[in-house]
């Protein structure tokens, strides 16, 4: 591989990085893992005169947890760092499930969750759970910082709400609400390391013995990750059972807008969306402490192999 020529800066502060990016008038790119950016630079899909390396900015390399404000993930935090974080392991198991099934060991040792978000890919594995978690993105520009709900960030395949002079600096994930369970499930095109043909992130809240609020997010079945609102409403106040979850899975699948591509046909994606939603809901309900009548055991539900 031979890369096109560019200038390289490794600032030590967020302010410096933002000034470098804004000063380049759209001809500079932030750079952290490089696992997506470098192949795109090589193929000419992305052009950049300047790369601004974020990995030397201590604040951007930090993961923080506070019971009141939740989890804070800096933009240069690698996927492997998240997997190694005791706070993430203990309190955000669905994020661990999603990240551990993303790409390969080497890519997880290099790539960042912020990069996974900013690529704007409809099939990014870390995104459905972040949406189900109601995460916020801290976007910094010379005009200041704004907090955007991650659900409002995706505009189309590869298109996001990020302004040309803005840098994603942190991802905020609220603290785990009581009596809730989250889950992730994915159908890779071939093996666990593959890009998803369908992925889902769900939340189930327990209200007494029934399901309270529920959230269902599906990836790779539309131009952006989608919420299945009708399926969510069907769950609210319901007693969970195998037949209901079948129905909710089919309802969620009917809310998707998949396409045919090299990874799967639209019809197969829709069928598998129903299956993954049902399986993920069983795991999330179990994690919320909610029984599911007549359901298959949660153990085989995520397809997690690691």
């Amino acid at each position, binding site marked *: 591989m031979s890369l096109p020529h560019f200038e390289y800066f490794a600032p030590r502060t967020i302010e410096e990085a933002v000034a470098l990016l804004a000063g380049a008038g759209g001809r500079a790119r932030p750079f952290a893992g490089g696992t997506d950016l470098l192949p795109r630079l090589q193929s000419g899909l992305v052009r950049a005169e300047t790369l601004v390396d974020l990995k030397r900015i201590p604040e951007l390399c930090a993961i923080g947890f506070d019971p009141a404000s939740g989890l804070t993930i800096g933009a240069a935090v690698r996927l492997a760092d998240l997997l190694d974080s005791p706070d993430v392991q203990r309190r955000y198991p669905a994020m661990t499930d999603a990240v551990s099934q993303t790409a*390969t060991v*080497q890519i997880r040792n290099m790539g960042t969750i912020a990069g996974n978000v900013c690529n704007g890919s409809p099939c990014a594995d870390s995104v459905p759970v972040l949406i189900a978690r109601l995460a916020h993105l801290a976007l910094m520009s010379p005009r200041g910082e704004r907090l955007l709900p991650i659900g409002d960030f995706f505009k189309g395949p590869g298109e996001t709400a990020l302004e040309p002079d803005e840098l994603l600096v942190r991802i905020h994930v609220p603290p785990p609400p009581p009596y809730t369970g989250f889950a992730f499930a994915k159908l890779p095109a071939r093996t666990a390391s593959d890009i998803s043909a369908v992925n889902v992130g769900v939340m189930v809240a327990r209200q007494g013995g029934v399901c309270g609020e529920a959230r269902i997010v599906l990836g790779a079945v539309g131009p952006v990750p989608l919420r299945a609102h009708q399926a969510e409403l069907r769950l609210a106040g319901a007693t969970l059972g195998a037949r209901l979850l079948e129905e909710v899975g089919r309802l969620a699948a009917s809310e998707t807008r998949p396409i045919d591509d090299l990874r799967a046909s639209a019809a197969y994606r829709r069928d598998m969306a129903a299956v993954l939603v049902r399986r993920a809901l069983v795991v999330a309900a179990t994690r919320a402490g909610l029984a599911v009548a007549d359901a298959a055991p949660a153990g085989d539900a995520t397809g997690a192999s690691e």
Partner: protein
Amino acid sequence: MPHVIRLQVNGDRYEVAIEPWRTLNEVLREDLGLTGTKHGCGQGDCGACTVLLDGRSVLSCLTLAVSADGGDVRTVEGLAQGRERLHPIQEAFIAGGAIQCGYCTPGMEISALHLLRRRPRPTEAEIRAGLAGNLCRCTGYAKIVAAIQAASARMSDEPG
């Protein structure tokens, strides 16, 4: 404009002046003469270029050398600790016939080292997951998995 970077590779210190668009793979192979690390797909799919950077397995073809400034790199040339004996992973690959054309071997062995440091006694499923980022064009996976199991048993007996 060239950047002067410092690298520690297999315990040796280097200072090199490089252009920022050069990859760690290019600098290891072309500037330092360490051609054990291979260049395969150049896109992060095959794992032939895998090296340890600060203890983590990374793809040297997608790592800018300039961004590795100050880093500690271990390549296949640094697996064996002395000239007398190969590393237990290398011995197991040879004894088990886990090498066919050999092009994937340096990356496979570095990935195996990364895995065994974190999980000294991995299950077969953990070995396969740990090697998911390394492709063998000869498809000799069964013997590679068996070699890593053998190396795991040896290394647990005699750490180091």
